[in-house]
């Protein structure tokens, strides 16, 4: 096997201890018992549109802040500084990933922490998206709309010739997200700072050009993978903004976590595949670190070894693709069962799209559980690098040079406790949302209940898989 070092996730080692068998059995048993309790409690629930109505509380004091330019100005500045730091330190900093800020900023602060925080508090990407910030700043002063276009640039429909982006749905974002997952998980090159910096620069150029030629929001909504991703994650969050026809915020609400995923949205296989990719790439990230994966790569060595590192990349990419395909087929099969037990003729595409979002809580909490110690401990590795971010022998902040990461919130027992609680709470939210969605789709409470047995089984299976991965010993070179 090629020397892949200690690369896990996109970069860096993980220090997690696998959860014990007793803890795994306890959590797995808890998932089954709680699922059963939920099913019993849900008997005789409401059906129709009322089923997906959820409580929310207006927070008028947040409205002036939401309407002001400051949050986007501050957020955009942070995003822009982060992007600039990734490009500059990636291209001109230390070649060793552990000593280069670009790796920490990309894989821990952006990719792990921002996703978790966006689920917890709201769509942070909306505020910190650096390409939107650059575009808006330039549009304000320098860019005039192409001929025939009128109105605010944000609202212009994007088109080049006869091509309209709405025709391709979010398939470009699906492709971009898959390529990003390949960079992180299958290329084995995510720990090369120069590559991370170069790709950040390339993606910035493509995104800005796309926004210019196709229209800002058209490009972001259809092609920019992170905007689509954070849009989905943000629906889980407790903050909800209501807008008028002009796109202005008219009210801000607080709501329970997860219920935003019940809101009606566009349907389509592109959106289903995007959500499935969120689940499958996360699962693959976990599987890559297990002994079972290590054994599999050794068993298949005769096939990929002749091509060396490229063969290993192909093996991993093919495995991740097959896992995504398997997730998709299993999900569709279970949705067919949901519709069958619901005893109502429904459009498969629309139903699958609606129920796919109910899996998002399981993916988000697994993401948080999986990355818990990574975010808590390894993120601190950036602090001493601030003294000399380009590894040029500088002493900008000498007081930070000797900083050692604290494990205060990442002792094994704390990590396990956080992981188990997160996974079970996410499972409960998912089961609850799925039941409400079924209430909306099917006509009688009995049918709603019947339709939910397959979905419940699927969610228990997915949660069990998440727990199983957390209980596996982490292997090097995953």
């Amino acid at each position: 096997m090629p020397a892949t070092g200690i690369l896990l996730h996109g970069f860096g080692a993980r220090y997690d201890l696998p959860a014990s068998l007793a803890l795994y059995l306890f959590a797995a048993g808890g998932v089954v018992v709680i699922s059963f309790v939920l099913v019993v409690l849900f008997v005789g629930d409401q059906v129709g549109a009322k089923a997906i109505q959820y409580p929310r509380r207006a927070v008028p004091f947040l409205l002036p802040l939401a309407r002001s330019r400051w949050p986007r100005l501050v957020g955009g500045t942070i995003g822009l500084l982060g992007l600039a730091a990734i490009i500059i330190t990636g291209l001109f900093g230390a070649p060793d990933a552990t000593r280069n800020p670009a790796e920490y900023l990309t894989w821990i602060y952006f990719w792990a922490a921002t996703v978790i925080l966006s689920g917890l508090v709201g769509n942070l990407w909306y505020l910190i998206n650096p390409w939107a910030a650059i575009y808006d700043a330039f549009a304000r002063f320098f860019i005039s709309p192409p001929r025939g276009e009128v109105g605010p640039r944000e609202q212009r429909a994007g088109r080049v010739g006869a091509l309209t982006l709405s025709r391709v749905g979010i398939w470009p974002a699906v492709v971009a997200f898959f390529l990003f997952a390949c960079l992180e998980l299958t290329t084995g090159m995510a720990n090369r700072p120069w590559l991370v910096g170069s790709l950040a620069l390339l993606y910035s150029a493509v995104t800005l050009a796309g926004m210019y030629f196709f229209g800002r929001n058209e490009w972001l909504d259809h092609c920019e993978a992170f905007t689509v991703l954070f849009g989905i994650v943000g629906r889980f969050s407790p903050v909800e903004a209501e807008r008028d026809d002009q796109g202005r915020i008219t009210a801000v609400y607080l709501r329970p976590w997860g219920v935003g995923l019940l809101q009606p949205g566009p349907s389509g296989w592109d959106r289903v595949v995007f959500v499935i990719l969120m689940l499958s790439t996360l699962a693959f990230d976990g599987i890559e670190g297990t002994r079972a994966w290590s054994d599999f790569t050794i068993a298949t060595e005769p096939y990929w070894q002749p091509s060396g590192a490229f063969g290993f990349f192909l093996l991993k990419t093919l495995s991740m693709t097959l896992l995504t395909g398997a997730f998709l087929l299993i999900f569709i099969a279970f949705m067919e069962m949901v519709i069958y037990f619901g005893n109502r003729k429904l459009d498969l595409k629309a139903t699958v799209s609606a129920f796919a979002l109910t899996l998002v809580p399981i993916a988000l909490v697994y993401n948080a559980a999986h990355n818990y110690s990574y975010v808590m401990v390894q993120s601190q590795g950036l602090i001493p690098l601030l003294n000399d971010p380009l590894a040029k022998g500088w002493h900008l902040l000498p007081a930070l040079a000797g900083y050692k990461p604290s494990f205060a919130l990442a002792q094994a027992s704390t990590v396990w406790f956080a992981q188990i609680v997160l996974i079970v709470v996410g499972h409960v939210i998912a089961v609850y949302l799925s039941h409400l969605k079924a209430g909306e789709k099917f006509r009688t409470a009995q049918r709603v209940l019947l339709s939910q047995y397959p979905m419940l089984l699927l969610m228990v299976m997915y949660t069990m898989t998440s727990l199983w991965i957390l209980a596996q010993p982490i292997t090097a070179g995953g």
Partner: protein
Amino acid sequence: MSRYRIPIVIVVLVVFVVVGGILIFANQNAGGQNVTINVTVTGGAKMVPDTLKAHHNDTVTINVTSDTDGEVHLHGYDIHFDTKAGQVVTQTFKAANTGDFPIEWESTSTPLGHLVVS
């Protein structure tokens, strides 16, 4: 029934969390012992034994013997063993952090094994 279901779900979750917490925090290993581990590194590529074990708060002494000059790095604890061929290099530290910590041959980032502190 419907008015009680949210409180029931919350009670079930609280019971689960409390029992889980007891299961996890009551079964922590009692450390505080002195543990000495002797390891041999060959060619900067192989370490015997490759899995070193200790308990939380043990005082751990690791003696590294290598047939090659170089550096063995214990990640997480960030401890370096500057090896000289045929000589024993010793580091003693308190296992204050639990986890699974990789050990590498630093110059080539070759994984040698790991220290498990439980």
